[in-house]
């Protein structure tokens, strides 16, 4: 039996330990905000927080998350909007929106560890999350504005 916390709630799972966390979140918990795109940890659409750090849930097996605390996009702004969610709106970031939960979770993890990242730190972190619509310049602005607001 695998036990974990998802967005603060305790959960138990007795299925296939090889199942990636992504599919557990989406199919077992109906938390569909976390997106499938590559399945190989190449694009970052499925990014969630595992014990506070950004991970690719498509390559993180259930066996590997036993005892962990997981936060998904649904849990990020559950009580009040995260500064990044505000900044995302103010900078009109999304186009199709599909990769944006992954972008926001990646950026939230960065800001949690480094409240005032410089351009290089932002780039090094965010280059792992692909946006086919090409919203990168607005993501950059939004992260900087959220970081500025936080500091």
């Amino acid at each position, binding site marked *: 039996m695998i036990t974990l916390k998802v967005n603060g709630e305790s959960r138990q799972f007795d299925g296939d330990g090889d199942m990636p966390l992504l599919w557990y979140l989406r199919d077992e918990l109906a938390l569909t905000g976390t997106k499938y795109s590559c399945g190989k940890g190449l694009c970052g659409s499925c990014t969630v927080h595992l014990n506070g750090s950004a991970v690719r849930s498509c390559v993180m097996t259930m066996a590997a998350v036993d005892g962990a605390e997981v936060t998904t996009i649904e849990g990020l702004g559950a009580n009040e909007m995260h500064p990044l969610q505000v900044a995302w709106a103010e900078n009109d970031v999304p186009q199709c929106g*599909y990769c944006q939960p992954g972008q926001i979770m990646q950026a939230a993890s960065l800001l949690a560890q480094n409240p005032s990242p410089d351009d290089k730190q932002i780039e090094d972190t965010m280059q792992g999350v692909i946006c086919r619509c090409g919203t990168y310049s*607005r993501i950059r602005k939004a992260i900087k504005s959220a970081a500025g607001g936080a500091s």
Partner: protein
Amino acid sequence: MSTQEYPVPVLPFERKAIAKAVNPEVTAFNHTRSVSRRDFLKAGSVLVIGVSLFGCSEGEREQVAETPAISGPWTPDVYVSFDAEGTVTIVSHRSEMGQGIKTSLPAVVADEMEADWNRVVVEQATGDKKFGDQSTGGSLSVISFFQRMREAGASVRLLLEQAAAQQWGVAVSECSAQQHKVVHKGSDKSADFRELLAVASQLPVPTPDQLTLKTPDQYRYIGKSMRIVDMHEMTHGTARYGADIRVPGMKFAAIARPPVVFGKVKSYDATKALAVKGVQAVVELPALEPPAVYKALGGVAVVADNSWAALKARDLLSVEWDNGANADYDSGRFKQALLEAVRQPGANQRNDGNFDEAQASAASTLEAEYYAPHLGHMMMEPPAAMADVRADFCEVWAPTQDPQSLVGMATAISGLPEDKVRINMSLLGSAFGRKGKGDYVNEALFLSKEVGAPVLVQWSREDEVRHGYYHTVSAQHLSVGLDESGKVTAWRHRLAYPSIMSTFNPAAKAPAKLELGQGVINLPYEIDNIRVEASEADAKVRIGWLRSVCTIFQSFAINAFSDEIAHARGLDPVENLLELLGPDRTIDLARFGMENKEGHPFQTGRLRGVIELVAEKAGWGRELPAGHGLGIAAQYSFDTYAAAVIEVAVGEDGSWRVPRVDFAIDCGQVVNVDRVKAQQEGAAVFGLSLARYGKLTMSNGRVDQGNFNDSRLVRFGMDPETHVHLVDSHLAPSGVGEPGVPPFAPALANAIFAATGKRIRELPIGIRI
């Protein structure tokens, strides 16, 4: 039962007279709202316009109670309805795939009806012909529906003004709508829309000739920046895409498809797949027979309790394939065959003057060959769709660019009539043309009917890369003659590529007019002798359309070759482009067998305008650091005039990056400034991805690539600083989703020449020059 029979769809390029296809009618909606305004507001999201939610005080509310109320929703137009509170629901009937249409067209309606945007709910339509054309492609949504949406809004505005006039016993001309109220000129009478609904709903809906549309100075939302209606959902994980529907009893499916198009299952062993926990069934799909259209590819499906079990078991299937006639496809050999083809004469597609004579008497000549490979769509959301085929009803949930094509598909597979079929449109996790082709919906419908449960078909990334409808592969040969003064007197453009039409008709082997009409036969250069020749090419994969379609490679060749002409003439590239374009005039497209579109004449002066604007704004001719170069390209496409100046920086090791892009866009009246700019920022990233990496290759009929590691996309940090310069205009609005892409690759190639002296005649460029 067959997955194979349903009507051949209308392609998005084949623009029909669709703008007025639907007359206002009174009908109730039979679908649910996809935007929950209450959730949106409860979460404290930022609203576009800062006025109070209900736009009225408590006192006003008490007054309302005394006015007669409407008993149910009032729908004065197929796109517009009111509830008793006066909240307006505006239907977005096109597909939202990142271009912002779900905000922009409803904002046009709201503007003309003087609705307060805070009292507007946007509702996503189902696929239904009552909404007129819904095939979202060809950058057509605003082109086709701007006028219709204005009329819908103006019609409702007039009804409300008439109702106020009747209620107050004054002339209609003295009543005017302003932000969800009608006010009386000459008195202090004023009524909220809500108070007028009971009377207005009894009045006859005006005809278009009775309407007075706003003048541009009266626009409130048109020409401004409107925040997208799904902002809160998209940033909180509650926006719903194709694979996000959850209903009780649903199953999840993954499919092993034939690796070669038109291949068939010879035999298969499902023992290992069936042993996977959660697997419910293994089902063989019917083999695909030509034409491909939007039919399922065939193969073997695993249906399971969750996506993981389906995907894992699918990979454990042991399938022996009969690969069929396309197994000989080798894109390397095909490239050589296409290049050979364009070195020979092809069938004439345009023939002005006499190219051969002019070329023979030219003082000098110039020629070059261009090649561009297959491309995949690589949208972040791979195809996914859910279908529920029941005995008495059939329902589909899908990210689709063409919901009405799915109506025919669903009726054919379910055997049910149209009124027993519902096509729900989710958001699209981008599409770029791929999701106009509902093969993945066809699979879901077939499987749901087979297993008797709702089935969600999930494509993996590898499925998406290996089973697409690919952007075609092309070779082009360009040849010009110049006189002693350097003027171009003869121009010949030869092309060979598999046609999109091959997907619908296997006999279609030559580029079609709708493809060559994307910049080639309608070349606006003023040259006396122009010939276009096209050669046949077999399609060995399904050919589809990708954002900007044939202009991607056709604009690349024409603009890159134009730069070679500039160099040969010793002319500045901007000066050269303007000289080739010649004096301002309207191009008669009928001369080339194309349609002169009402409201959208092809005016070369507007192309000149964007060339001059982008050159000025980009600082054309400015001093650059060592290794940097500027390049320019211009393209008329999707009724819009676009030009780009790109700055490239090339390192000593041949590595390169794009520090800056300037776009000038003349798309007539801009509807949503922010979204038009966003589309061009996206076009720069899209253009850079295709110019740097874009290439799919095929061996033995199979796609060699599979995921983002070998079919790469531009990542964060590589994105250019993009400046978008919009021409201020009140002319008829035109497309904005695609026109930024075509000038990108040639402007980049020309910039690389300026920086290094090296010509780029083949795409992609790669990471080093």
